């Protein structure tokens, strides 16, 4: 028989998490409930859906903090996110469709830590920090170190994700996100990625580029970042294409092939730079 707890507050939630580390931590269920009738029945459910302390969007001077329980619908509709964190709003709009966006949460994407989590390259490109809580206290983890392998992360078995803190890109920074799948809605990405490109006139000062669905986890493509410094956008696009080619080894699976993913990843990253030309 499955136990069930809907904690009143975060304190009760972390106490339960410490007491029952094997229980399923459930929010919107858009990933964990897929094919639920054909899955092992969990021993217990720790239900964090609509837990107030992890459901917020706070706009600060240098960053926006987004509670783990915030849905994609809420992310996509928030004026400050649309205005200042465009790649996250773009990702939110293409995660599933209305029914998924009503339930799926940012914390779910971070916690599941799938290589195809559509928002995760955004967290890498914008250099987010993840805030977690447990009975031992709180700590902050740079998202660049969060993923440790296929669907694994630094989150300890007694910890819960509280929020993502996302620094606001400065003036002169071009940010973007794009996904390639069989269709815009619902499909799981074949390749997707995000970039933050700091420009001075038409020259790339520096860039952070991240891709999903090309490795066992979402990854920064540091070879691209090293290759594009100081180049014009047109030359940066070509340098980025070559750097992608030599730095990823995507797999064949039911959704795509290694060859296709590699070519699309090259085009995607090259286009991040050519599309930035329109704003510099």
């Amino acid at each position, binding site marked *: *028989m*499955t*136990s*069930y707890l*809907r904690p009143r507050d975060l304190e009760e939630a972390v106490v339960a998490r410490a007491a029952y580390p094997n229980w399923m931590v*459930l929010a*919107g*269920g*858009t990933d964990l*409930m*897929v*094919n*639920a*009738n*054909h899955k092992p*029945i*969990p021993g217990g*459910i720790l*239900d964090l*859906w609509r837990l107030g302390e992890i459901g917020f969007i706070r706009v600060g001077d240098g960053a926006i903090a987004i509670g783990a329980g915030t849905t994609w*619908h809420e992310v996509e509709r928030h004026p400050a996110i649309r205005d200042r964190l465009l790649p996250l709003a773009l990702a939110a709009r293409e995660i*599933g*469709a*209305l*029914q*998924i966006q*009503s*339930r799926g949460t940012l914390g779910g994407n971070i916690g599941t830590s799938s290589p195809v989590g559509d928002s995760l390259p955004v967290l890498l490109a914008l250099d987010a920090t993840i805030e977690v809580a447990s009975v031992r206290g709180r700590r902050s983890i740079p998202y660049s170190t969060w993923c440790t392998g296929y669907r694994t992360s630094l989150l300890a078995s007694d910890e819960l994700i509280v929020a993502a803190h996302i620094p606001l890109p400065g003036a002169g920074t071009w940010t973007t996100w794009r996904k390639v799948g069989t*269709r*815009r*809605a*619902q499909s799981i990405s074949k390749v997707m990625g995000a970039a933050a490109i700091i420009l001075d006139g038409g020259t790339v000062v520096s860039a952070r580029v991240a891709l999903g669905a090309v490795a066992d986890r979402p990854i920064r493509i540091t070879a691209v970042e090293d290759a594009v410094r100081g180049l014009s956008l047109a030359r940066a696009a070509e340098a980025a294409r070559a750097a992608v080619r030599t730095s990823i080894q995507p797999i064949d699976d039911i959704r795509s092939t290694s060859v296709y993913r590699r070519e699309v990843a090259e085009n995607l990253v090259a286009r991040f730079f050519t599309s930035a030309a329109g704003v510099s």
Partner: protein
Amino acid sequence: MKVTLTVNGAMHAVEVSPWKRLLDVLREDLRLTGTKEGCGEGECGACTVMLDGEAVNSCLVAVGQCDARTVTTVEGLARGDVLHAVQKALVACGGAQCGICTPGIAVCAAHVIDRGLVIGRDEPSARAQVRELLAGNICRCTGYQLIVDAVIAAAREVGER
């Protein structure tokens, strides 16, 4: 566990596993079989219901999460004998073929119409908007044109009231 939920305005108490899907509780425990199962993995939208006013896939909701919550299914869209505007429009436009996706489409469309989310000023922008809002509802007969016609017609009618 005992779960008490309000479905289509009536309060129900069921003794079930919290892991049981809302979809199965609606169909098996409450005998509300209007809600259909398509894929069981949140892809097709056939099982769409409103949960606390949001359109959700009921195959992805654990019923433990529904205690003290409010659900509207396709059976709850009509007011007595008066169909919801989108139900009337689906009938008038012939916006259904085999029918398995229709309950989910009716619920999702009623949700977006009642929320005023279809605001496209001209025909092409309204069509694009409806296609995106209903992108989570798949019709395997591919009869989308008449469904989109019906949703736009209903949105206009409700908007003009």
